[in-house]
C-alpha cells in the first residue's frame, strides 16, 4: 500500500464531512437568513472550496484524485442535484484547481502539479498561493457553472456570486487552520 494513501483517504473523509456540514447545516441557515433566492445554486459562504484549495496548495495535484469523487458524491447525495449537474460541477471545479496550481507553477518553472509546502522553495508563500489558487478556481467555477445553470435550469446566476462565496469560504477555513496550525503540522510532520 502506498504510504500516502491513508493520509489522502483521511483528507477525503474530512472534505466529505465539510461538504455535509455545508449542505446540511450552513446552507439551511443561509436560506433562513437571506431567504431562498439562489442559495441552492450558489452559497454566500462556501467552506469546502477553502479546504480543497489548501489541500491542493500543500499536497499538489495528487490530492485531486480524492477530491473529484468526494465532490461528486457530496453534490449528488447531500445537495440533491442531478447527476449531470454534479458531474459538471465536479469536473469544472477540479480542473479549476489544477489550472490554478499549474498557473502558479508556470512562472517559477516548476513541475505543473507540484504543491508549495514541501522542499526548500521559498519563492512562494503558502498564503499567497492559497489566495491566488482560490481566486483562479472560483473564476473558472463561476464562469462554468453560470453557463451550466443558465442552459439547463434556466437560472441566471451571477458569476461574481461564486467568487464571493468561494473567497469568503477560503478565508474562513484559512483563518481556522492558522489558529490550529501547530497540532496539524505536528501530525503530518510538516517541515
Amino acid at each position: 500500500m502506498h504510504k500516502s494513501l491513508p493520509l489522502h483517504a483521511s483528507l477525503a473523509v474530512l472534505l466529505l464531512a465539510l461538504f455535509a456540514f455545508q449542505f446540511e447545516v450552513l446552507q439551511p441557515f443561509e436560506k433562513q437568513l437571506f431567504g431562498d433566492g439562489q442559495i441552492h445554486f450558489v452559497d454566500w459562504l462556501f467552506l469546502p472550496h477553502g479546504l480543497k484549495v489548501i489541500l491542493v496548495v500543500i499536497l499538489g495535484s495528487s490530492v485531486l484524485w480524492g477530491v473529484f469523487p468526494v465532490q461528486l458524491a457530496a453534490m449528488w447525495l447531500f445537495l440533491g442535484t442531478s447527476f449531470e449537474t454534479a458531474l459538471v460541477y465536479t469536473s469544472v471545479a477540479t480542473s479549476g484547481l489544477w489550472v490554478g496550481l499549474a498557473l502558479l507553477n508556470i512562472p517559477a518553472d516548476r513541475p505543473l502539479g507540484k504543491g508549495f509546502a514541501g522542499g526548500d522553495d521559498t519563492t512562494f508563500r503558502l498564503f499567497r498561493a492559497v489566495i491566488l489558487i482560490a481566486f483562479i478556481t472560483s473564476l473558472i467555477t463561476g464562469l462554468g457553472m453560470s453557463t451550466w445553470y443558465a442552459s439547463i435550469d434556466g437560472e441566471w446566476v451571477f458569476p461574481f456570486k461564486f467568487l464571493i462565496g468561494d473567497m469568503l469560504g477560503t478565508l474562513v477555513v484559512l483563518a481556522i487552520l492558522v489558529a490550529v496550525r501547530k497540532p496539524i503540522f505536528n501530525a503530518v510532520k510538516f517541515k
Partner: protein
Amino acid sequence: MSSLRYYFAAFVFLVIAFLVQWLVVVPLQGALFPSVNFSLSHLISVPFGAGLVIVLMMGFKGLPVVIFGKAFLETSLMDVAPMEAVIHGVHDGAALLLALLATAYMLRRDLKHGLFMQSVCASTLVRQAFFMTIMASLIDGVLHASINLGSADATLPMRYLMSHLLGGASLFAMLYLLRYKLSQWVTVKDA
C-alpha cells in the same frame, strides 16, 4: 516628454489592434459563422490582447490608454454608443488591473513599471505574460458575463472567456515568436 511618447506609441498599438479586429476578425467571423450573433462577444478579441501588451510593458500607467483609447476607438470605429464604449473600456481596465495586481502579488513585482521592465530574461517574461493573460481573460470574462447576464443565450459567459483567451493567446504567441529578439533587448537593458 518621453512618457508622452510611450503613451502615444501605446495608443497607436491599440489603433492597429482595433483595425485588425474591424477589418479582419469581424468580416472573417461573419463569413465563417453567419448564424451566430457576435454583437456582444467576438470570436477573438484582439484589442484585449493589445491592452495586455500595453499593461505588460507600462504597468498600471498603461491603463488610461486602454480605458480611454478603447472607449474612443469603439465609438469611432465600431459604432458603439459612447456610454457603452466607456463601460467596455472600464471592464478591460479593471480586468487588466486585477490581473496585474495578482501577478505582482504573486511575484512581488513593482506595479509602476510593468513586467517587461522587471524581467531578467525573456523566458521569465513569457511565462509571466502567460499567467497574466489567463488571469485577465478569466476576470474580464466574469466581468462581461456578469454585466450582460441574461442579454444573450446561456453560452455568453463561455464565449466571453473564449474570445479573451484567444485574444490573449495571440499576444502570447507573438511574444513567444519574438522571444529571441526579446532576449536581446532584455540583455541589453540588463547590461
